[in-house]
């Protein structure tokens, strides 16, 4: 294209081209929608009437005191709570417009699309390379020589390749805690999730590793939608576009991170973000 024709492309045409290039163009703008979600265990109510819509490609921080239901909310989104004893729920959660509990939904597919990273790194007892491709193998996404390609790509993506390329067949347990968490992230990314649930992902890491992992999270959007449960208010401010504050099983506040931290609507939020309660 020369100078003249390029100028003739209108903004509307550009927008339409970009729209057609967007792989998510036919999907709802909100990747996860919770509708009046209430969750309890053996009669004990943990979450009450949570309704929220999470826009695709954003980072949402989930904050709140211990026992306020943040982790329960997170773990409900990929159905990790389903088999906990006495699990009961009302309301619904939609992933790309379809209920995650609808009979047509495959549980394993839901978990492939909604990945998870835990409080502490949890590598599997297999080589570093096998850890990265463990999920890929289970879902039959790739096999044979492709697995090496996947492993290298994902390890590069999390910035671990140079550190481990000479010991791909070695034990993951000899890596540092931060490196192990990055390995777990590579493993979660390898199956190609749309949403990543992060349950206090840096709480077991030192400040330097935390910074490395955090800066990586920011590179994952807008391809992925991130939900981060954190006790670290600084992390919530640094990382997120929007913030949800849970208080006693209820969604006390949900808004842009700037609004939640600077002009909280709820009195409990104000006290919490100022560090007056914890």
């Amino acid at each position, binding site marked *: 294209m020369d100078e003249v024709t390029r100028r003739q492309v209108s903004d509307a045409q550009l927008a339409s081209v970009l729209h057609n290039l967007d792989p998510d163009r036919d999907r709802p703008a909100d990747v996860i929608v919770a509708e009046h979600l209430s969750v309890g265990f053996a009669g004990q109510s943990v979450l009450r009437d949570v309704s929220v819509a999470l826009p695709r490609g954003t980072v949402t921080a989930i904050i709140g005191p211990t026992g306020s239901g943040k982790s329960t909310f997170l773990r409900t989104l990929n159905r*990790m709570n389903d088999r906990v004893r006495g699990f009961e729920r009302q309301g619904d959660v939609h992933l790309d417009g379809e209920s995650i509990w609808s009979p047509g939904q495959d549980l394993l597919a839901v978990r492939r699309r909604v990945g998870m990273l835990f409080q502490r790194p949890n590598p599997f007892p*297999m080589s570093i390379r096998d850890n990265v491709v463990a999920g890929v193998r289970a879902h039959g996404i790739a096999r044979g020589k492709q697995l090496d390609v996947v492993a290298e790509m994902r390890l590069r993506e999390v910035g671990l390749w140079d550190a481990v390329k000479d010991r791909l067949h070695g034990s993951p347990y000899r890596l540092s805690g931060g490196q192990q968490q990055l390995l777990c992230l590579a493993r979660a990314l390898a199956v190609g999730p749309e949403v990543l649930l992060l349950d206090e992902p840096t709480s077991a890491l030192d400040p330097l590793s935390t910074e490395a992992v955090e800066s990586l999270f920011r590179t994952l959007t807008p391809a992925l939608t991130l939900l981060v449960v954190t006790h670290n208010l600084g992390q919530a401010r640094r990382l997120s576009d929007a913030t949800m504050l849970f208080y006693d099983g209820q969604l006390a506040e949900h808004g842009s991170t700037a609004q939640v931290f600077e002009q909280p609507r709820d009195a409990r939020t104000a006290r919490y973000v100022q560090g007056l309660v914890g």
Partner: protein
Amino acid sequence: MRQRASIDVIGARRDESSSRRLRRVWAQREESLWRVGGRVATLVPVGALVFLVAVLAVKAWPAVKVNGGSFLTSTAWLPGNTYGGVEHVHGVTIPAGARYGAWPLIAGTLQTSAIALVFAVPVSILTAFALTEGLPGWIARPVGFVVEVVAGIPSVIIGLWGVLVLGPFLARHVYPLVANRIPDVPVLKYLGGSVGYGEGLLTSGLVLGLMIVPIIASTTRDLFLQVPALPKEGARALGMTDAEVARRVTLPWVRSGVIGAAVLGLGRALGETIAVAMVSGSVLGVVSPNLYGTMTTIAATIVSQLDSAATDGTGFAVATLAEAGLLLAGISIVVNLAARAIVHRSGALGAPVGRA
């Protein structure tokens, strides 16, 4: 009055200090009891092993000299003429015509133990999986208890059941299903042919397998319970099924322990005597031509032949049984060392037990 009170106080102090001294003395005595007693106690099993192997070796020595290297390869089992005629070989007096070879016993021991392991290891792992993940607690607990009780059933009872019930049942209803479908080609025909009446190689191996399942299963269950929840949860969150979690995470996590449990079971299978003596058919001098034939093992031979060996006035038959016993001890030790080597190799990814 005041003086008396102060004396009381001083007296009390004296009592206290002497009781403290006493306590220290007892503490030192207890300390040395644990240290010295501990050293003496460890000598018991070590000493017993040395003594046992030494006595066995001395008893077996004449037989080792006479039987030579062919003891390991020969299939003869001829007690010779035990009523008079003797011959002298390498300075040892033996009944005329006595010839012994242990190859059928060695082959029988290794074959039955291999069959037992092939049967017991998968059954045990699946049992452990069911007890820890598959079944609800109110079923798993009593079933787990039953599994442990089975481990305590005397082997003679299992042998009796094997020869009266299990063997005939398998020979009539199960073995033919396999044997009759096997074509007469090399290697494969080992699985075919005559299935006999239920006494023999496969029945012995399966009975041994049943006997070692409880040991391996209960150990494996305890190992599975030690696997931390976090890696398993990670695997589930990645979209793995329960079976995949078991295969890719739980089992590898405790792999070396499971191998150790299997070796424990193998040790018992190699040495198990009376049950095998009852279901093997106790046929000397023959290596079974197929999976079902009658045979015997080292341990079963020792127990079934000891009476008749005692009638050998030269003592050569008893010496030969001692040599067979030495051989069994040697096989057990080699198997243990091999298993250790495997555990060492499989631990190359780091021993993750205790990490989360």
